[in-house]
């Protein structure tokens, strides 16, 4: 199950002398969820458009399901592809169901699943209302529903969760996991890094058209070597004593019942063992791993390929 579904091979794109994508090599395997992270203009949308075959690379190659998306086989391979653009709009005079039926016909899939898809994004009641009466969030959800038409093998989602309330957001990520487990490959770009953290395995970080980091969250944390923060909750009055016992550890704060310190990721387990040896005086331990936000800032500021 490690077939390459989406591939950038030294792919570059130049618009009128300006390099918007600088020789990116990235392989995304089948049945995985990858988050594309980067500031505006980092090249995320250009990568999506290359995968859709809307533009051709100026250099290198792009492959989707083994075919050139801008070539003659690209049209057919788009039957297995779902896309949610960053700003979604529909012709307002249609109803939600009209729109789904139209897109299902274009994709040549059965219209019967349309109501179920609308239900999945919480639009079953609004299915027969005109889209112009929809709120922004409802349009976004309709966009998600059309992207999921025909059980796509590849999902390209540009900012998918804007306009979703927490409950729908959870349902959306549940749906993604299900699609992934069924073998779909999902590439999503997002600014909402904190909510991605528990939901994705892999991150590709873009900066100024270059891929500056790529890998699992775990690997990226280790490579970045951002200190892990720990906070001990101690028995009343023993904070100072415990701080003394942790000789060699870089203590940040000792304050009545709490001891706070940070350590390198690789030393985390060693220090935890020492903490547990202290015994009952330590009542609780909080560990704060570097968040995706921090990782992103780290790689963005470092700006080198790792």
């Amino acid at each position: 199950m490690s077939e390459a579904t989406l591939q950038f091979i030294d792919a570059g794109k130049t618009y009128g002398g300006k390099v918007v994508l600088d020789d990116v090599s990235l392989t995304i395997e089948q049945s995985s969820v990858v988050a594309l992270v980067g500031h505006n203009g980092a090249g995320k949308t250009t990568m999506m458009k290359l995968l859709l075959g809307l533009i051709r690379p100026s250099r290198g190659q792009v492959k989707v399901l083994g075919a050139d998306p801008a070539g003659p086989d690209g049209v057919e391979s788009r039957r297995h592809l779902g896309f949610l653009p960053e700003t979604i709009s529909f012709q307002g005079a249609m109803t939600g169901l009209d729109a789904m039926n139209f897109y299902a016909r274009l994709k040549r899939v059965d219209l019967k699943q349309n109501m179920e898809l609308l239900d999945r994004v919480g639009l079953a009641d609004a299915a027969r209302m005109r889209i112009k009466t929809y709120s922004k969030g409802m349009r976004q959800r309709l966009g998600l529903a059309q992207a999921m038409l025909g059980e796509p093998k590849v999902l390209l989602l540009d900012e998918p969760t804007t306009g979703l309330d927490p409950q729908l957001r959870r349902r959306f990520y549940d749906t993604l996991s299900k699609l992934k487990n069924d073998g779909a490959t999902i590439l999503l770009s997002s600014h909402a890094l904190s909510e991605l953290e528990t939901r994705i395995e892999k991150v590709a970080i873009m900066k100024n058209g270059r891929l500056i980091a790529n890998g699992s969250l775990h690997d990226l944390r280790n490579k970045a070597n951002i200190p892990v923060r720990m906070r001990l909750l101690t028995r009343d009055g023993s904070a100072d004593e415990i701080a003394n016992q942790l000789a060699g550890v870089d203590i940040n704060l000792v304050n009545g019942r709490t001891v706070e310190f940070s350590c390198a990721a690789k030393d985390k387990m060693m220090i935890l063992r020492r903490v547990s040896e202290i015994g009952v005086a330590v009542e609780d331990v909080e560990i704060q791993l570097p968040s995706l936000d921090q990782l992103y800032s780290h790689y963005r500021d470092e700006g080198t390929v790792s």
Partner: protein
Amino acid sequence: MNAVATIAVQEIRDGLRNRWIIALTLILAGFALSLTFLGSAPGGNVGASPLLVTVVSLSSLSIFLLPLIGLMLSYDSIIGEIERGTMLLFLSYPVTRSHVMAGKFLGHMTILAFATIVGYGVAGAAAFVRGDVVEGNAITAFFNMTASSILLGGAFLGLGYLISASVRERGTAAGIAIGVWLVFVLIYDMALLAVLVHFSGSIAQGLFQVLLLVNPADAYRLFNLGGFDNVQALSGSIGMMADVKLPVWAMIGVLLAWVVMPLGVAGYLFNRKDI
């Protein structure tokens, strides 16, 4: 159903939903009916065929109206979708850009043909019901007029697509569309007339014919007003064309070429456009 048909049907549904089809049909029927009844009042005295009078009046009207309708339907159809962002989603589906354009054109052509056939057909039926004496060649002239009106509209649909595929903003497309209409429908003829008056006699008949054929509106006029002797007799004001005798296939060919060529160039430009 294949992609082109799906897109065409979608375009027709849009036309129904936003009331374009009903509005166009009513406008054309309204004009046609009033021309049939008001326009035939003088004809009765000189004994001219009322249906032929209607053909002459309706084709004079069509020259202004159908290019306008064609351009209005199409000038926005590509650049508008690009600007609204619906084109990006559209092209993420298993369709080529040629499918998109062919589908839209077929849809618009159907709308235009429906409105023209129903609108003018109502007027023709009204003349028949009223009990006009209808000669065979008047019926032929009426059919030819309706069919060539649709072609004329189609030529300007194609020009509209060409405009829509070549501009970067919707506003520009609207401006150019108005310009194109003015040039082909009004200014070209005036300029030609001015040239004719200035070089009176010295301009070659052949060149004059070519100049008339180059403009789809003039090709349409020649076809409908010059093609039939009876009609020609009624359309006195365009007597200058009486001398221009061109084969029917040339005039139909010019109109068809004006449908196909702009559409082809539009397709080429659209395929190269960055979305």
